[in-house]
């Protein structure tokens, strides 16, 4: 049987393998080579400078700042997103009317293009006629309405809140799918003992979901460090340095935004550091979060 099938292995894999090698693997490997050069992207000459890009990045204050900001996003954003997602999972878990509808609504920001969401949130936070401030004014909270949500002090947290709102949808759905696999018998037994929704969550759902949660943590680490589209689009003209993520810094170095910079070798070196950081954190997470599987 298997030999009969083996005939198709190569032809069936070939197109995918070729495209993947040419447009993914080869570039990924070549990126290391590019980052050892100084290249403006304009002329054919790339000047070999060895590891100078990598050492410059270690001294680059902007890179340090952006790295801290990205780490903060992954850490604080992650905690907020996961708590909220688990909260909704607990609330919507099990049966319940309208569960499908609620789940779809919570998820919906994930199917909308980030530019549109960024436009929306830009408008929400607009100081003069934005939705948030006009709501606060209508509620009589005029002091709060004068807070500069997109000002240099708060913009980092304001945007973090928006990003959390988007991703809670994805992780809620993920956790709910995992929770759906927990035998209903557990919940029924708990209900007989008089446990409420939340209580059942903390004593049944959460522990049995741990595998999905730890996988979610890995996804979030990758997603969080790759954040670009929302951050890049949210401020209209030039993203303020307070919300730069590592990918934004890379793109600005490689292409500039209004002022052309074109330091392509250096940009790739920074991207390489990003890969190293993500791989490191993912590996560490997998190690520490693993535990023996719970059979049920």
């Amino acid at each position, binding site marked *: 049987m298997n030999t009969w099938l083996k005939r198709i292995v190569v032809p069936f894999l070939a197109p995918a393998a070729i495209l993947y090698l040419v447009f993914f693997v080869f570039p*990924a490997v070549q990126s290391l080579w590019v980052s050892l050069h100084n290249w403006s992207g304009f002329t054919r000459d790339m000047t070999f400078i060895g590891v100078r890009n990598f050492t410059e990045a270690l001294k680059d204050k902007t890179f340090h700042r952006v790295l801290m900001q990205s780490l903060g996003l992954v850490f604080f954003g992650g905690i907020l997103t996961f708590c909220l997602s688990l909260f909704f999972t607990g609330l919507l878990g099990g049966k319940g009317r309208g569960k499908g509808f609620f789940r779809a609504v919570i998820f919906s920001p994930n199917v909308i293009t980030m530019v549109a969401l960024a436009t929306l949130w830009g408008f929400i936070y607009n100081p003069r006629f934005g939705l948030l401030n006009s709501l606060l004014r209508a509620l009589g909270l005029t002091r709060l309405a004068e807070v500069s949500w997109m000002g240099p002090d708060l913009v980092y947290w304001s945007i973090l809140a928006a990003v959390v709102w988007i991703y809670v949808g994805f992780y809620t*759905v993920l956790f709910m799918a995992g929770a759906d696999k927990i035998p209903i018998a557990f919940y029924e037994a708990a209900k007989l003992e008089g446990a409420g929704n939340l209580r059942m969550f903390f004593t049944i759902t959460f522990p049995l979901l741990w595998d999905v949660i730890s996988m979610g943590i890995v996804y979030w680490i990758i997603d969080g460090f790759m954040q670009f589209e929302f951050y890049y*689009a949210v401020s*209209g003209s030039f993203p303020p340095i307070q919300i730069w993520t590592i990918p934004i810094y890379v793109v600005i170095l490689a292409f500039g935004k209004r002022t052309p910079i074109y330091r392509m070798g250096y940009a*790739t070196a920074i991207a390489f550091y990003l890969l190293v950081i993500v791989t490191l954190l993912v590996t560490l997470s997998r190690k520490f979060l693993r535990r023996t599987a719970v059979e049920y």
Partner: protein
Amino acid sequence: MERNLETRESAGGLLARRLAAAVPSGVANLFLALWIAFTLFTIAWVLISSFKTNRELFESVWSLPRGLNVQSYVKAWRISKMGNYFLNSLLLITFSTAGIVFVAAPAAYVLARVAFRGRQLVTNIFVSGMSIPQVLLLVPVFMLLRRFLLLDNLIGVGLVYVAVNLPFTIFMLISFFITLPVELEEASAIDGASPVRTFLTVMLPLAGPGIITAFIINFIWNWKEYFWPLVLISSDSKKTVSLGLYGLQGSMQYSADWVGLFAGCVIVMLPTLLLFAVMSKRIISGMTIGALKG
């Protein structure tokens, strides 16, 4: 196993139980209701505001439009060229997504159902691509497309889309193919069909739901994104709709035409929202399939 569960329970469980007792169900449900209302409201608000005039919008952000001002859509579609970009996206995304599925399905099939040496390694190579930041590929892909003379060309973007979406799509389709009964190939072989024919006439139709899901998820994902068009496309006529919206947002600062911008947002949002509304179950299950393996 039992012991593990118990010790974990008592460790966090005590705190958890206290917390659970402290938060009444009512508050939790209220929070959920607010969240749902907020999400629905904001999306609806963009839609409603796109039908206002700029004057109405600045007079009061909450009011309903006085009439249905479709001028904003006409302007966005024709003058701001969102119509052109929409067409570009429609062609590009449809074809590249079809490409992704055409290429990923056979690969996923053999990786799922044919034992061969190195299968696990190949699978890992494909799937581990999901954790590579696309921004790392930025400069090398740029160089590559330049060499193929595919810079500022939607075909180049399409090829990149196929490549970067292979990891997830193959991952997802493997999960689908694995669930099909083992006997199918045997039965088909007995009937005298070739493996290719088996694949096309038996496996594909059965994995149909998975394939469709893969198509839709990739369609939505690629429709949404604007990173690759941002760095690879320079000419205005070749922009995709998400990139066009990004440009529209930039130019809106100079024209102060917020309602035009909202109309643009709706033009971009609508296809994916509609797809999602019709197929939400499928999409959600497809996206989470990987997490639930094993």
